[in-house]
């Protein structure tokens, strides 16, 4: 009997033999499996925070909408326009129109303090004053509870994320803004995007409450097509009346998520990498003890004519299997514990809270299992080589 089939049978036989001996080594095996599971759970768990935050940002901007800010402003907070300027921006070429005029919404953006439900401590919640086109310059906006506010009236609607994360934002309750009290009349959704973390009112109402005269902070427009962006941008930046910066809405949100995503990813990888090193040591320990416990058996097989290659491969398969089982356990734990866990955090760029949910994506799970497999391979390789190199006669004499 020769050839690859024979070899595979050999590998199969030794692997089966190894796996059957697992109950005898359950302490060491459990330690390894749980060690790998811990690495994968932490890796997937931490990165799911970044993935969730990124998802909110990614669904918020479509390529055929744009945001206009004062040149030099990195967020709406520090931007500013007068009415005459917002009108010029709305009338620029490339902006889509309907029967009521250009799809352009000049907006105000301020922050109010509301307690987070989770902690009871004050958090910065964004309050946005909008014009009617706000519904068209964003995607998939819907009232999911109550009704839209009446234009010109002191009323607000709140995003579903804000309603969930902050106290006092139910339909029927009132929010206090300085000396004003505005009733919440509705809740809206925006397919999970950033607007869901915001409170919306009529721009005119907000202007009056904040003594802003007829000024705005940003203008959002819907373009005729994604390709119209350049034309729109060129016409604004070449206009001597204006001093603006024009960004595609999708790029704007990607930029906004950068700082936090970088922070989480850097720290998450660092922690998971260190944990992985620890898990490799644990796997090495287990596999060395597996080899030590089976020295005589392996030598017997070698004496019977099993190849050293088959020994190495079967031990690697064993380590790989243990690690992948650990990886799957860890990934499942992370999925069960974290997927769609709602929370909110500070978006450094807009200085305000963004509600989001942890996202344990299939990509993250695959990545977790790949990490597990690498840990298993490294942990199995050296013990396997040692086993294959054992002189048969010496090993048979052992014990």
């Amino acid at each position, binding site marked *: 009997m020769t050839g690859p089939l024979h070899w595979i049978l050999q590998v199969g036989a030794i692997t089966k033999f190894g796996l059957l001996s697992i109950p005898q080594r359950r*302490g*060491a095996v*459990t*330690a390894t499996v*749980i*060690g790998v599971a*811990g690495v994968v*759970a*932490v890796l997937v768990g*931490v990165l799911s925070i970044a993935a969730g935050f990124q998802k909110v940002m990614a669904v918020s901007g479509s390529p055929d909408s744009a945001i206009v800010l004062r040149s*030099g*402003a*990195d*967020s709406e*907070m*520090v931007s500013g326009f007068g009415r005459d300027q917002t009108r010029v921006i709305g009338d620029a070429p490339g902006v889509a129109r309907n029967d009521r005029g250009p799809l352009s919404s000049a907006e105000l953006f*301020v*922050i*109010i*303090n509301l307690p*987070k439900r*989770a*902690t009871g*401590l*004050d*958090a*910065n919640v964004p309050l946005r004053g909008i014009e009617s086109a706000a519904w068209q310059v964003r995607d998939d906006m819907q009232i999911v509870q109550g009704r839209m506010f009446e234009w010109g009236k002191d009323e607000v609607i709140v995003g579903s994320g804000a309603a969930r994360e902050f106290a006092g934002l139910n339909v029927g309750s009132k929010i206090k*803004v*300085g*000396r004003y009290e505005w009733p919440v009349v509705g809740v809206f959704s925006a397919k999970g995007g950033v607007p869901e973390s915001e409170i919306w009112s009529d721009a005119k109402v907000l202007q009056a409450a904040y003594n802003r005269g007829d000024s705005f902070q940003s203008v959002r427009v819907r373009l005729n097509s994604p390709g119209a962006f350049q034309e729109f941008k060129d016409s604004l930046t070449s206009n001597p009346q204006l001093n603006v910066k024009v960004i595609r809405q999708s790029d704007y949100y990607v930029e906004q998520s950068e*700082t936090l995503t*970088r*922070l989480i990813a*850097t*720290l998450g990888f*660092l*922690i998971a990498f*260190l*944990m992985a*090193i*620890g*898990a490799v*040591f*644990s796997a*090495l*320990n287990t596999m*060395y*003890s597996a080899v030590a416990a089976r020295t005589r058996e392996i030598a017997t097989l070698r004496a019977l004519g099993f190849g050293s290659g088959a020994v190495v491969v079967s031990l690697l398969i064993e380590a790989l299997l243990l690690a992948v089982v650990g990886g799957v356990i860890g990934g499942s734990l992370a999925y069960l514990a974290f997927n769609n866990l709602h*929370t*909110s*955090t*500070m978006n450094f760029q807009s*200085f305000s*809270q963004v509600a989001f949910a942890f996202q344990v994506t299939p990509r993250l799970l695959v990545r977790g299992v790949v990490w597990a497999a690498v840990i298993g391979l490294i942990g199995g390789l050296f013990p396997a080589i040692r086993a294959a190199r054992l002189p048969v006669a010496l090993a048979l004499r052992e014990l």
Partner: protein
Amino acid sequence: MKYLHLVWSNLKRKKLRTSLTLLSILVAFILFGFLSAIQQALVGGVAMAGADRLIVRHKVSIIQMLPESYKARMERIPGVSLVAHQTWFGGIYQDPKKFFMQNPVVPEEFLSMFPELVLPTEQKQAWLATRTGAIVGRTTAERFHWKTGDRVPIQSSIWAQENGSRNWEFDIVGIYDGKKKGTDTTPLFFRYDYFDEARGRWGKGQVGWFTIRVADPARAAEVAKLVDQEFENSSAETKTEPEGAFVQAWASQLGNIVLIVAAILGAVFFTILLVAGNTMAQAVRERTGELGVLKAIGFTNGQVLALVLVESCLLTVLGGVLGLGLAWVMISRGDPTSGLLPMFFFPTRDLLVGLGISIALGLVTGIFPALQAMRLQVADALRGT
């Protein structure tokens, strides 16, 4: 302690297994160090807050400004001993990603309000004498290689000068250090009088927030109430709270960091517990015969128990000390995120907690094998070989 040699030889018996276990313990403690530093960087400010300081901000939100004239009114409130204000400048030096804070302040009251900022006397004099002067913390000075005498251009995303320009220039007249390890030495402070005169019409006479020192910290809550009452029903109502509460609310805006760190550390130590515990169990199992011999020649049950426990503690403490040491060296190299975590360091308190954990880990992992060893019957043990 005369048996230390015996314990040590036992550990050396399976060198490979001991070193692998040691290494995984070591990695766990490096992680412990890192997570302590991260937590310190994100929520450590609470511990640095002054017990005798209150923060006064606009009731609606900190982004809204308060009139500078409030200062005089606050100073008249009984129990208030000092008032200083700051304003968010939102400046960028070279690259928006190289973030650090810059605030205009009134030098004398500011420096006496924050004695944790240590500035040499002659530099303080220079600041008082230079209108465009600014002082900067050691961390930022070293980051950008600034020296006293340098003139630094900073672009404000918020504040324009009278002529519409957003480019501001400051003369570095001093570099301050922190009195304690946790003091943030990244911000730059410049003079409010220069700022208020140079800024355009918008915002003139307005400041971001006030810090109040109360004469008697025990009466802080009472004073806070008085301050808010003073400005009730005005166009800019205030919210006054202890500095610690303000910082804590700020940190918790990021999310529940303490919980996340605790969860990760829990996962790490649970794993290590299993690995080290398994090693000790194996070690005792292999040595059943020898332990029987020790007992036969007169070792008491207590001595056998101690022998095993000392061995497991030696292993974990060795791993702990090496790990914490390595973590300390790595953390001393500074913030791994280039600027996002200005207060990234390893607090001494956590170093001690780490040592405590390493001893506890040794006891927990050793206790079951040790009890097993203690209960061995001499005859059974000897027969078992």
